[in-house]
């Protein structure tokens, strides 16, 4: 049996819960991710879709089906973002995949890139510094110091996968015009994995402390607000806190989704809720960072 999971036409962090609901609970059915009607996918949507394919592949040992966007421009963008280069690992791809040269274009600062170990994090940080520094300073008017902090935040977000997910994940960095509310150029980091998630990672050391309150939402609160880690080393648990501090300095947004909850540190230009619980379950963790152009 094959079950169709519809990819939202506008696939971003806002429509991700709709996607997670369609994705549903694990079953014996082979999934067909139908992106034929997709009109746009954010970096968050693209790495989230890969995480879904990865979760299914790791669970069933079989690639899911994926129909590509019918719109030529949309498919072209998915190719330019590096999604189509990675997709065949977890999807049997149907539809015409446009051929594009490796992206040297300025809006894709880091193509969709796998993160499995520390070496991958080094590669990501190396590439982003080469490609992004000029854009971050000239187009987003960030100071030089901020571009270094950007690499730090990216590194810490990727290390969450290496240290806690129990499997590999994905990262991409893009810059584009944020039409929703802000109407300014932004740089977006999206990181996703289909691993164990925050609740299971922290459960052995934190569940007892929270008692009946323990769940995906309290695990996210513990990690992001209280800076706890599954490791007892007092130096651990600083990564998300450091990302949070960096983003708040530049009026950026941080959102972390894991399991059935999502926590967000929202600047004044965004109207996301601080904590959403009882969302449709989705495996692993998905991190979104948005930094707006400075005025």
């Amino acid at each position, binding site marked *: 049996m094959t079950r169709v999971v519809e990819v939202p036409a506008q696939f971003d962090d806002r429509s991700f819960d709709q996607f997670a609901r369609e994705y549903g609970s694990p079953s014996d059915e082979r999934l067909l991710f139908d992106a034929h009607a997709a009109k746009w996918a954010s970096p968050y949507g693209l790495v989230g879709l890969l995480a879904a394919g990865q979760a299914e592949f790791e669970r069933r040992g079989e690639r899911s089906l994926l129909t590509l966007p019918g719109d030529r421009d949309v498919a072209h963008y998915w190719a330019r973002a590096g999604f189509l280069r990675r997709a065949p690992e977890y999807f049997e791809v149907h539809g015409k995949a446009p051929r594009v040269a490796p992206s040297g274009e300025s809006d894709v600062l880091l193509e969709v890139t796998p993160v499995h170990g520390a070496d991958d994090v*080094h590669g990501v940080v190396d590439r982003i510094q080469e490609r992004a520094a000029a854009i971050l300073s000239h187009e987003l008017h960030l100071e030089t*110091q901020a571009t270094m902090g950007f690499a730090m935040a990216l590194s810490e977000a990727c*290390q969450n996968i290496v240290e806690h997910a129990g499997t590999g994940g994905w990262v991409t960095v893009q810059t584009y015009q944020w039409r929703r509310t802000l109407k300014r150029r932004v740089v977006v980091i999206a990181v996703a994995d289909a691993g164990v998630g925050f609740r299971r990672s922290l459960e052995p050391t934190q569940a007892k402390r929270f008692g009946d309150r323990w769940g995906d939402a309290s695990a996210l609160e513990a990690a992001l607000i209280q800076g706890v880690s599954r490791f007892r080393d007092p*130096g651990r648990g600083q990564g998300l806190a450091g990302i949070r501090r960096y983003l708040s300095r530049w009026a950026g947004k941080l959102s972390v989704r894991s399991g059935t909850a999502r926590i967000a540190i929202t600047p004044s230009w965004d109207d996301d809720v601080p904590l959403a619980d009882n969302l449709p379950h989705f495996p692993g963790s998905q991190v979104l960072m948005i930094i707006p152009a400075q005025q």
Partner: protein
Amino acid sequence: MPKINLRDALRLAVADGYGDLVTRRTGQAVRQVIEDTLATMAGEQPAAIDFGTVRCLDLSCADEIVGRLLREHGHDRAFVLLNVSPAHRESIEFVLERHQLAVAVTDAAGSSDVVGSVTDAVRQVFQFVAHGGPASAREIAEGLALSPEHAQAALDELHRLRLMPAAHAAAAS
């Protein structure tokens, strides 16, 4: 003061030609190289660690290379970090404030400062000594318009945190 170059330490620690101090694994490997070097140095001899060739320093590496080094060796050895950029400083400060630690740093221009968890008075006294050389509590109190008790307390804190050798070295340079 013996100097440990982080580019050399990075090359010795990881063979892949990395240019950034990122990931906890890399930080652990670099700290191991630093500790091996420290083991060859006389007892309480201060050590300088040169950040001049480091591009990105993330929090995990800052914790392993600076935070953990100070936690495990800071009680019996003074450290000074050389050529620390504003971006390095942010990562180091974030880590040290969490652990209530502090370390002496110099920037590329050779200007000295304290990074981490210290009071304004301690920072002022460090700057006073770093610029003017060794001074008594009375001289510091007069120079900075502090009470003698506050000046003495700041000096004691600088000694406790092993920041005084770096201040003296800065004054002598």
